[in-house]
């Protein structure tokens, strides 16, 4: 490896950010895979969990387990308090105006489906237009296609340039009097591009068009303030944010949520049921039918507490260091092409070789203990845009180290040797 990229990054970020201390909080990272230390670079798929999150789940099931919002007994009150406390923490974490605007869901996918089926089916009609971008995850494409089939609305797509950035001029052109909704990712899962969501919201709001943001890949990396972004909906998953799987959040502006019908019917989302008429519960419970993932919500609260205890400026500097180090190191490898070279990126490096398929690279890296994602990343239109069937993606989190990128590079060199 060359020395050039060492100079790029082994500098200021090292100060004040003790990555080894962070790593000690994540027990899974101590594991060996195929006899080698685990290098976990598949954070875009899911993140690892700090001990405090694991303990929160354990504590809940050991001492608090009970159903919420319905028991007069001690445990139910405890569980309800813990669950609602988690909602408060999340409200603060994304700076929502009120906890009424924080709806617990299964994950980003369910959050977007909720917006499509509740808001979309109520307010869209034939000929209306929904704008998404060419870098969306399938979960921010398919729910809108389904909605289009149901309502006769039409899907419009903002193109991306060769660097993997949205073409904002095209977005401005797509916005018109027929546009009734914009739904766009905050950070691309396949490319790492950070999308200028705030500016896009401003442009949409000039035309009174609401904006839904897929924040699944943004919340683990960026400090998100939904009021500052100005968006109308913001969706994210717990498991990518160092919390449990099966729980996620939809932030929605209260004014819109109030006007929307429930997404699912059942217990907890009602205030009064008779066979003649049912009255729905107030926000956010109107959208939370059935017993939720109580432990998951509490676990996500613990994850948020953990993150709030960190210095985010230093986390951001550390992750930026990982990205620039990896970009420089991978660019030095003969025949390797990085897909997604936007100016504003989070720690995601997607790459391809002409003569080695991503899946083969993934298997060889796995033998070195390096976990990456190989495939189309549930973003097949992105792959089509760049004319590749699949990429290998290394996605970083705050607990990754520069030394691990050296191991990644050595693994890639092994793949090159196999396929020379």
């Amino acid at each position, binding site marked *: 490896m060359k020395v050039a990229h060492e100079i790029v990054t082994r500098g200021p970020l090292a100060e004040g950010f003790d990555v080894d201390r962070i790593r000690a909080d994540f027990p899974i990272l101590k594991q060996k895979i195929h006899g080698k230390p685990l290098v976990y670079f598949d954070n875009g798929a899911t993140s690892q969990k700090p001990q405090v999150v694991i303990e929160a789940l354990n504590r809940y099931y050991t001492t608090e387990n009970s159903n919420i919002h319905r028991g007069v007994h001690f445990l139910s009150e405890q569980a309800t308090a813990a669950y609602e406390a988690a909602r408060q923490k999340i409200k603060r974490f994304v700076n929502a105006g009120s906890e009424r605007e924080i709806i617990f869901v299964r994950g980003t996918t369910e959050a977007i489906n909720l917006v499509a089926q509740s808001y979309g089916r109520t307010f869209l009609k034939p000929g209306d237009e929904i704008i998404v971008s060419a870098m969306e995850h399938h979960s921010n494409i398919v729910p809108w296609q389904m909605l289009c089939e149901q309502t006769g609305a039409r899907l419009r797509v903002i193109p991306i340039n060769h660097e993997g950035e949205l073409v904002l001029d095209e977005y401005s052109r797509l916005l018109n009097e027929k546009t009734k909704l914009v739904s766009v990712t905050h950070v691309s899962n396949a490319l790492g591009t950070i999308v200028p969501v705030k500016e896009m919201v401003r442009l949409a709001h000039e035309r009174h068009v609401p904006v839904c943001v897929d924040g699944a890949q943004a919340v683990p990396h960026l400090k998100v303030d939904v009021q500052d972004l100005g968006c109308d909906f913001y969706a994210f998953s717990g498991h990518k944010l160092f919390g449990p799987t099966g729980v996620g959040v939809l932030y929605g502006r209260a004014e819109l949520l109030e006007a929307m019908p429930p997404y699912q019917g059942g217990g907890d989302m009602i205030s009064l049921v008779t066979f003649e008429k049912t009255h729905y519960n107030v926000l956010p419970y109107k959208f939370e039918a059935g017993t939720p993932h109580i432990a998951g919500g509490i676990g996500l609260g613990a994850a948020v507490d953990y993150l709030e205890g960190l210095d985010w400026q230093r986390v951001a500097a550390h992750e930026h260091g990982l990205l620039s180090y990896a970009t420089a190191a991978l660019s030095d490898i003969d025949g390797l092409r990085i897909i997604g070279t936007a100016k504003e990126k989070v720690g995601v490096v997607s790459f391809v070789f002409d003569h080695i398929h991503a899946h083969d690279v993934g298997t060889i890296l796995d033998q070195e203990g390096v976990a990456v994602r*190989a495939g189309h990343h549930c973003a097949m239109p992105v792959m089509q845009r760049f004319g590749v069937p699949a990429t290998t993606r290394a996605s970083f989190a705050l607990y990754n180290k520069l030394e691990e990128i050296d191991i990644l590079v050595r693994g890639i060199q092994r793949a090159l040797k196999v396929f020379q």
Partner: protein
Amino acid sequence: MSELDELYQEVILDHNKSPRNYRSMEHANRKAQGYNPLCGDQLTVYLQLEGGVIKDISFQGSGCAISKASASMMTAELKGKSEAEAKELFENVHNMLTGHFNGDEPEGPKRLGKLTILSGVSKFPARVKCASLAWHTVNSALKAEPEVVSTE
């Protein structure tokens, strides 16, 4: 030999680099498409069946080394075989890839001839679908199933 060396043997790498029978076929009377949604591997298998015998076979598509090599070796192996023989081979290959043959069954792998070189795949569960895609596809072509085959 390490598990990785067993997976990427010279023969497999060679078939990946220069796949045999890699072409479309105008006079094909059977054709099927295979698709692995997990990794995006895609291939088309062409057959010319005459009197229950595979007179000609070819494939085209994109995929990883394992899927390409497996498809290439399959075409070399199936040319001239009867439909019944092809189906039997499909079963045997499937059993080998999923690790159902072991050292105690000398009958098994022997019947597979050169294809035993793919047995290393069974140690990599995530890659079994790559190796079996071509076989599922040819099986569907033989049955003349019209739909796209998926490994999911």
